[in-house]
């Protein structure tokens, strides 16, 4: 592989984005860059798990969602009414639930295997479950009754939204720890489906527990780390400097905001990239590759495979959590219904594989490129269809049928591009060295 390959490919993406800027608009271009950067962070997280350690995590969407949840929990103002209506009762309920589980685990560990143990476990679990439901359900009902159209949830801590990013990482890491403790013993595709299922569970909770973050009713209007365009537009100083540059204030304000996000995202990406890169090219990375290659042998050579797996699973998930928080911040809203595995889990996987798994640069490239395509295949699809149908007689049934189906060109085009890329570089665009 030539050493010019990576710079060349990044150049290509840059050209594509600049092209968007010149041909479409700079706002579009910047938006693509921003989500591209977030996608790159996600891809970095997945690459950490798959590329470094061979962990097949298809629960990416769950960790992204947790990051999103962290944004609400950190940055939204608390809903005082809801707290007084039943906040403490909910917390008490959750504590009861946790206590039940802990008790059950302790019983399981400390009693001999016997009928009595089974019976005791059953009593603890069933009794605990009903107690939990009783306390918890009451609290939930009270909280959700508080102005359901606008709130109906507990709200967050009201902290600056940037804090939500590390919080997202922490939340995702916590979940990853729990999951890892139970599921990491599984091999490849079995781990995959387990993580897939857990992600579904996380999303199901977020969709249905309205007291937490309004469920499918969505939380909109999240605080932003950058100024609002409308404020900028009414700020005379800003308008003046925009005029100096010869840009109209609306465009200037939208660009300004996007550039702000871009700067923040770039900083995060660079830090994470640096960390990942250092880790990969170190004895730690070597150890991880050894584990990926052959767990039995690595274990015999003194490497604690389970612990390392857990470590890298937590790290990768945390990165995904951070990315999820960044994305929700960029969107300005949390919409649990939109966390679809196709869009978030599998698209991220496409990014990692197309970029070249095991290669951090590849992940970043994959993230930027695939996101660019995901957005731009739509116009491309229309264009392609235009070409195909150009020769057909106007008003022919086939032509109108095809034009009606133009929207489906999006997935089709995406599929074709994916197949072409993988055809010409089957190990990804920037393969692992």
């Amino acid at each position, binding site marked *: 592989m030539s050493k010019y390959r990576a710079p060349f490919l990044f150049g290509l993406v840059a050209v594509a984005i600049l092209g968007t800027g010149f041909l479409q608009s700079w706002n579009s271009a910047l938006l693509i860059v921003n989500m591209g950067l977030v996608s790159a962070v996600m891809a970095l997280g997945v690459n950490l798990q*798959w590329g470094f350690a061979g962990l*097949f995590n298809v629960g990416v969407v769950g960790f992204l969602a947790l990051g999103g949840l962290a944004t609400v929990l950190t940055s939204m103002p608390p809903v005082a009414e809801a707290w007084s209506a039943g906040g403490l009762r909910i917390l008490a309920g959750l504590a009861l639930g946790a206590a039940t589980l802990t008790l059950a685990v302790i019983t399981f560990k400390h009693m001999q295997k016997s009928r009595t143990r089974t019976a005791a476990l059953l009593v603890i679990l069933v009794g605990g479950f009903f107690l939990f439901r009783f306390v918890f359900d009451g609290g939930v009902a009270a909280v959700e009754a508080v102005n359901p159209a606008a709130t109906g949830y507990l709200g967050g801590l009201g902290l600056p939204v940037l804090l939500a990013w590390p919080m997202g990482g922490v939340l995702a890491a916590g979940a990853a720890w729990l999951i890892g403790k*139970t*599921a990491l*013993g*599984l*091999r*490849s*595709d*079995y781990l*995959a*489906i*387990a993580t*897939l*299922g*857990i992600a*579904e*569970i996380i999303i*199901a*909770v977020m*969709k*249905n527990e309205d007291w937490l973050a309004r469920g499918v009713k969505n939380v909109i209007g999240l605080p932003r780390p950058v100024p609002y365009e409308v404020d900028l537009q009414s700020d005379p100083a800003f308008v003046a400097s925009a005029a100096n540059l010869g840009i109209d204030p609306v465009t200037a304000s939208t660009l300004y905001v996007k550039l702000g996000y871009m700067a923040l995202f770039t900083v995060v990406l660079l830090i994470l990239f640096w960390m990942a890169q250092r880790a990969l090219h170190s004895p730690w990375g070597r150890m991880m590759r050894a584990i990926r290659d052959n767990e039995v042998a690595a274990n015999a050579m003194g490497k604690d495979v389970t612990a390392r797996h857990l470590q890298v699973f937590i790290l990768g998930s945390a990165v995904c959590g951070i990315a999820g928080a960044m994305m929700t911040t960029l969107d300005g809203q949390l919409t649990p219904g939109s966390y679809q*595995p*196709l869009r978030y889990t*599998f698209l991220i*996987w*496409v990014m990692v*594989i*197309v970029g070249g*798994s095991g290669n951090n640069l590849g992940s970043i490239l994959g993230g930027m490129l695939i996101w660019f395509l995901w957005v731009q295949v739509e116009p491309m699809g229309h264009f392609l269809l235009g070409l195909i149908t150009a020769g057909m007689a106007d008003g022919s049934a086939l032509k109108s049928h*095809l034009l009606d*189906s133009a929207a*489906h*060109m*999006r*997935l*089709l*085009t*995406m*599929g*074709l591009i*994916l*197949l072409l890329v*993988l*055809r010409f570089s*089957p*190990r990804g665009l920037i393969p692992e060295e």
Partner: protein
Amino acid sequence: MDFLNAVVALSNYVVVPAMAYGSQLALGALGVTLIYGILRFSNFAHGDTMAFGTMAVVMVTWAFQAMGVSIAPLPTALLALPFGIAICAALVLGTDRLVYRFYRAQKAKPVILVIVSMGVMFVLNGLVRFIIGVDDQRFGDGARLILSARDFKKMTGLDEGLVIKTSQGLTVLTAVIVVAWLYWFLTHTRSGKSMRAYSDNEDLALLSGINPERVVMITWIIVAALATIAGTLYGLDKSFKPFTYFQLLLPIFAAAIVGGLGSPLGAIAGGFVIAFSEVTVTYAWKKVLVYLLPEGLEPTGLVQLLSTDYKFAVSFVILLIVLLFRPTGLFAGKSV
């Protein structure tokens, strides 16, 4: 009497639908499991292959219906099935030729193939919608019910009805036949054994004189047949809509994995585990308890362990528990 009513209610709302759904999942899972077992990757395009095969069946069915051909009381679609299978087989063989073969020759890692199959999925997805559109299509005809609620009530004098649809009966029957055949084929025929040999050790299969391209071809043809059958039966029971077939992918994979990837028997078991766990854990026992408990003690609530919002989550929890105790599924599948 009340006891019987309770049993019937339970059968009607839990057992019968779960059996049918389980068989539908099982048929889908068989295809997934076969590709995993022989060609060693998780085929994400399977849902859309099912959609494609079903689409072919739907169109042929329409043609038959237009010509007035029918095999009532059975649905005409059964007559169209062989044609659909042929068309679907042509498609998957074409895809293999154009796409997968290249990666086989490269000895690409399974994950690459997974992603490639996602590319194929996108393309098929678009293709199906181009051809037949996005709407619901109904193509079932013939007798809809084997046993209707009214007949059942008349026959037994019970308050509760039991309904069995033709499509449900067909699905369960087909699933049983297909899995039995497949099991026999893989373990007792030369072709079947050569397929397993190929999946085990490709190079050595070559050295034994097994023609890999032939193995691959047979696999794809069987997969096409399975996908078309599964898709058609599902479509007959519910309806044909491309988007749903994509959604079907997830429970299908869950079924294949719970059962043990690569194992046909596992696919069946997995299908039922998933289906029954979805339906039973979130079942509201009120209706049954009303029959069983003495008057006055009837529950006021729904007596539901968990709300149906969590049905999918529940089936995944069960899946997890199964995997924790049997890490490669119920029927000891493989892992690549």
